[in-house]
């Protein structure tokens, strides 16, 4: 295919580097330096999509972030599909595959457009709120069809093959936008020695200068850009980020930047490179030099392909060497657009006329156009367009001085392109992200940034200052000021900029060009092209009472699209103001929020996916567990062995084997994950007494004690054993999941409530590897591995601990038990955990030592009625509710945490839910955990529930099922029967009993 619209010279493309690409299945060619949009235009492609609601053909309108129509599907394979890529911001690369997003069967012939044409009148804003209500049962069907029509592009269905990452930055001056203003600012700030970051969303730095014919210091602007870029690149304290969109400006000068590192290279990133990168910047000062976007004028049929933004036309000609048509009608309310006429004329193609809404204008550019002999029609406007799939003609008419009415005769100018300019809208978006509201400025006919809390400076186009010399000077000044306020400079000699000033005549505020017919009857005048929002739609919204601009937005969907209304919003606000008879300042804007332009989910997630989504925490014995076939359970961030199946075993068979091994011989558990806190200081005891519910004053050295912790409300929140290592020295254990929480809670109380207590706490969770050997043979086993610990049952008693050596490694051994069997918890420095574990396994072989995991541990402890905080409790239970009043010492001198809470009216009510044991009447039935109990299973629904099963297992020890659960008033209802209705309609009958199912006297651990 030939590039019919490509000029033979000029622009910043490299004609020596042709690139081929695909659009809608056809091959085309463009050049390096093209965007997908410029390449499509070069090839004379008019229709690049269909509109969302009415399915009208659409063409490329803009050249940058404000483009509403050209949102394409990109991707050569299923896994690399990217929906909704703005063609104006997608660099062309060899082999790029693209297609239009909407349109069925294709964009050139779209069946849906007939629905739009016929049904369009039936589809004003909000029509769906008024219909589809009958019959009620049909809504799911209606919705199915509504949803079919939804969406623009499509997501891949496969895992993304690319990777993304994040880089953190700190800088003195963050500059957003690398147009003349931003570059001048960066140069100034960098000269002071400040750390500078400058980012621009475009492929290269230069901003508006990339398509400008102006001279800076006597040379083409692009030369100046190159010089400055080189200068900045040489400075190690300057970070330059082209292709990087500052997508969010957050509180306290936190800025996020989305860098597309590889999107210009190919379908997916080269090996070893992330596709995109999020930069997270904390800046002292931020300089916003984001420039301004041109505003189109709104007139009837302004969506026909060939209607474009004036400045975009200039950009395509000057930067890309592409003339997007043959015959141009230019419609403007200001001088700047005359540049477009000059550019167009310079290509040798025809400028049919410049239609200027102003009665007269005599600025330098206007004069140049008139001097060229181009027809300029003052006091007129394009009010309608002829053409379906491409502009055929512009209808123009005289316009009253206030722009409210057409006057005089209308004329039809045949042309294939209409470029329009209604002036400029400063890119205020970022300045609004932190809550600042923009303010309307009549002088520049636009919104400018309002007051802010941030350390933010603004310069150039964003302030409505468009003169190039002003931009350079303002940018430079801001650069210096920002650097100085960050503690750098001042510098001696400042660069001087010489730029010829262009005299401009005053612009006219014009947004909606009136039609011969009133708004409601005129042909569609599009405001938001992506969402098919028209001036009539806005008028209708206000007529129905949606008068706040926020209501207008939500009722019409104006600004909801992927362009977030960059092109249309200000016009929409002006039209709302007009139909309400208010000023634009009164109407105000909607809220600009991140993102400035949409950014990839993958990029935000960065490397935090899959394996790295969250830390996996392991104990020192993990290699052994893996080698020995453990299955793992996620407990917090920990991976804990769940059980150790042998080949061919079912889970229940493994559990039975593991349980019986503990009961009959010896089992071994990796208990390293328990939280451990080393507590030292002379007030340690007092501190323990305040944070645990029970007493600690008399716990002797060498002794251990179990304790419950409550919050101030008296509800249990953690538990564990604390041991007295020495008079002023304790070791506290917590639940695995609660470790960090408990330590932070202890610190909170110590630091803020009781700083006078002399106590220090240090986490030693990771330091100690803990292995529990449990079972009647555990003493024998231990005896074979230690010669310096006296294991005699009367010297080393239950709830004692002893220091010594185990398997040649210094250890602390705690005789505590969570299984009810004779047990020893062996703690060694984790550097030696694996070696001691292996030794235990080796020596334990003679007792058939059996490793067991959390599941077996749960069964064993349930046989003994020991609770697991978080499983048997849920933050609504006091120690008394758990039947653990024995662990509360209400007479302690200090009102320990939880004491007052558990005495509140509701907490002492007689009929509270209490933890009891439950035995299914059929011993082989394991009541499903979570099952709710009722007194009468035949009562109507809703039933009165008594509580639920918290733990439930098959106990191989007892040869039957056992369960623990809450029952209202349960502690006084021993022997009663309760019922557990199941999802399948069956009912499980169970008897309330003591939760201690096995060895109630504790004989087995006291041996």
């Amino acid at each position, binding site marked *: 295919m030939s590039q019919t619209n490509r000029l033979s010279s000029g622009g910043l493309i490299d004609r020596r580097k042709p690139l081929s690409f695909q659009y809608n299945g056809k091959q085309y060619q463009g050049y390096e330096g093209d965007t997908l949009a410029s390449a499509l235009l070069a090839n004379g492609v008019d229709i690049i999509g269909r509109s969302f609601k009415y399915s009208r053909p659409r063409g490329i309108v803009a050249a940058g972030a404000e483009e509403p129509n050209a949102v394409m599907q990109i991707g050569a394979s299923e896994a690399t599909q990217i929906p909704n890529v703005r063609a104006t911001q997608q660099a062309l690369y060899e082999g790029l595959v693209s297609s239009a997003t909407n349109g069925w069967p294709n964009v050139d012939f779209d069946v849906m457009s007939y629905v739009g044409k016929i049904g369009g009148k039936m589809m004003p804003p909000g029509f769906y709120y008024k219909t589809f209500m009958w019959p009620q049962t049909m809504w799911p069907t209606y919705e199915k069809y509504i949803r079919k029509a939804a969406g623009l592009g499509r997501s891949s269905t496969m895992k993304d093959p690319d990777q993304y990452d994040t880089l953190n930055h700190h800088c003195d001056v963050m500059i957003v936008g690398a147009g003349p203003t931003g570059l001048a600012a960066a140069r100034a700030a960098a000269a002071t020695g400040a750390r500078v970051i400058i980012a621009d969303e475009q492929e290269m730095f230069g901003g508006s200068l990339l398509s400008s014919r102006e001279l800076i210091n006597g040379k083409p602007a692009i030369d100046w850009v190159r010089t400055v870029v080189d200068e900045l690149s040489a400075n190690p304290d300057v970070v330059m980020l082209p292709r990087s969109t500052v997508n969010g400006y957050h509180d306290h000068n936190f800025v996020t930047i989305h860098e597309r590192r590889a999107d210009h290279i190919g379908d997916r990133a080269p090996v070893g490179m992330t596709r995109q990168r999020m930069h997270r910047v904390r800046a002292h000062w931020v300089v916003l030099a984001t420039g301004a976007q041109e505003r189109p004028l709104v007139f009837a049929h302004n969506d026909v392909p060939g209607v474009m933004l004036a400045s975009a036309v200039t950009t395509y000609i000057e930067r890309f060497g592409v003339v997007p048509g043959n015959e141009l009608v230019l419609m403007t309310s200001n001088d700047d657009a005359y540049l477009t006429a000059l550019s167009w004329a310079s290509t040798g193609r025809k400028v049919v006329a410049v239609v200027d809404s102003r009665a007269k204008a005599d600025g330098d550019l206007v004069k140049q156009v008139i001097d060229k002999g181009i027809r300029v029609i003052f006091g007129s406007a394009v009010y309608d367009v002829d053409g379906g799939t491409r502009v055929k003609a512009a209808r123009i008419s005289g316009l009253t001085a206030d722009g409210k009415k057409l006057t005089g005769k209308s004329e039809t100018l045949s042309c294939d392109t209409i470029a329009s300019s209604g002036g400029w809208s400063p890119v205020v978006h970022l300045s609004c992200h932190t809550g600042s509201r923009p303010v309307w400025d009549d002088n520049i006919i636009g919104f400018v940034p309002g007051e802010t809390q941030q350390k933010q400076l603004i310069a150039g186009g964003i302030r409505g200052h468009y003169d190039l010399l002003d931009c350079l000077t303002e940018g430079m000044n801001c650069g210096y000021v920002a650097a100085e306020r960050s503690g750098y400079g001042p510098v001696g000699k400042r660069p001087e900029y010489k730029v010829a000033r262009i005299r401009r005549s005053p612009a006219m505020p014009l947004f909606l060009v009136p039609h011969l017919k009133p708004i409601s009857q005129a042909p569609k005048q599009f405001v938001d092209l992506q969402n098919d929002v028209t001036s009539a739609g806005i008028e209708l919204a206000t007529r129905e009472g949606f008068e706040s601009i926020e209501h207008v937005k939500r009722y019409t969907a104006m600004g909801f699209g992927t362009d977030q209304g960059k092109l249309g919003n200000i016009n929409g606000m002006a039209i709302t103001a007009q139909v309400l008879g208010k000023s634009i300042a009164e109407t105000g804007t909607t809220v600009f929020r991140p993102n400035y332009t949409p950014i990839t989910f993958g990029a935000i997630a960065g490397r935090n996916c899959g394996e*790295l989504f969250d830390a996996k925490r392991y104990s020192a014995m993990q290699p052994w567990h893996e080698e020995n076939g453990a299955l793992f359970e996620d407990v917090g961030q920990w991976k804990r062995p769940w059980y150790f199946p042998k080949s061919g075993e079912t889970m229940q068979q493994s559990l039975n084997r593991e349980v019986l091994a503990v009961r009959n011989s010896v089992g071994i558990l990796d208990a390293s994950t328990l939280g451990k806190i080393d507590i*030292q*200081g002379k*007030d340690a005891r007092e501190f323990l007494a305040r944070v645990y519910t029970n007493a600690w004053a008399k716990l002797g050295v060498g002794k251990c004690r179990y304790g419950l912790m409550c919050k101030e409300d008296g509800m249990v929140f953690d538990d564990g054993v604390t041991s007295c290592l*020495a008079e002023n020295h304790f070791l506290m254990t917590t639940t695995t999941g609660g470790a960090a929480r408990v330590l932070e809670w202890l610190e909170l109380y110590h630091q803020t409530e009781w*700083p*006078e207590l002399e106590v220090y706490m240090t986490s030693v969770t990771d330091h100690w590897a803990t292995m529990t050997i449990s079972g009647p043979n555990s003493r024998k086993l231990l005896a074979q591995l230690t010669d310096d610990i006296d294991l005699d049952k009367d010297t080393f008693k239950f709830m004692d601990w002893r220091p010594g050596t185990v398997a040649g490694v210094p250890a602390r051994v705690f005789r505590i038990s969570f299984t009810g069997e004779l047990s020893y918890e062996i703690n060694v420095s984790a550097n030696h*955990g694996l*070696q001691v574990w292996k030794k235990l396994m080796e020596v334990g072989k003679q007792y058939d030592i059996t490793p067991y995991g959390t599941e077996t541990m749960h069964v064993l402890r349930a046989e003994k009625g020991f609770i697991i905080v978080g499983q048997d409790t849920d933050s609504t239970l006091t120690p008394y509710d758990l039947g653990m009043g024995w662990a509360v010492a209400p007479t302690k001198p200090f009102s320990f945490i939880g004491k007052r809470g558990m005495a509140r009216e509701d907490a002492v009510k007689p009929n509270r839910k209490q933890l009891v044991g439950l035995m299914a009447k059929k011993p082989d039935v394991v009541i499903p955990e979570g099952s709710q109990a009722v007194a009468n299973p035949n009562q109507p629904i809703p039933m009165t529930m008594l509580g639920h099963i918290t733990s439930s297992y098959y106990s191989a020890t007892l040869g039957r099922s056992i369960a623990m659960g809450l029952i209202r008033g349960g502690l006084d209802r021993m022997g009663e029967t309760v019922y557990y209705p199941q999802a399948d309609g069956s009912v499980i009958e169970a008897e309330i009993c003591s939760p201690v199912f096995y060895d109630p006297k504790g004989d087995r651990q006291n041996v």
Partner: protein
Amino acid sequence: MSEVLEPKKASAAGTVASAEPVYALMDQRPADMSNAESPLSRFRWQVSSSGKNVGVVARELALLGHFILRGNVANADFVKGAAEVLGVELPGTLKSNAKGNLVVRWLAPDEWLITVPGEQAFAIESNLRKRLTGHYSLVNVSGGQTLLVLSGADAVNVLRKSCHYDVHDRNFPVGKVVGTTFAKAQCVIRRAGQQEWELVIRRSFADYLAAWIQDAAQEYGFAVK
């Protein structure tokens, strides 16, 4: 929580007179260290294929003695005593002091991390216990953490991918110590040299952090010493 303007008197209820030692002291290192496993000793590093430039080098300083010392700097004798035993002053805010292989890092206004060669650990612990006075705490955490040194021209970029702390020379000179978040874990970082960053890594997070680090380092060329 409460605003404690005038500390209440500590209740004396807890203290019982006893001849027992006040703190438990224990040499936790076996004589035979041949089977010891440092937190990273088993990690299977994936280094860049040879021939590539190496921008980041990782090196574990395994099996050192690690101690958390806590105490009050207002207690002059505690400060003096610590300095006497350690041979260096307790460093002030965000600083470290080193003498040979012994490094003391500031962690908090009342907290320091001391690392020493493993074989000296117990001697130093004992000497501190003997010498220190007043309210203080000393905890051996040698099994719970390790030091990983990242060096090379791009080590700094691995840090910038992993934590949001400002690692620029102007903010993070050699010798500075910072406790911060690192990926989704907590980490203490000391700048040990111009291109040398020493991370304190908790054992249970070691695999995760190592995997994270090598992934971050891949693009620069990664080697392990």
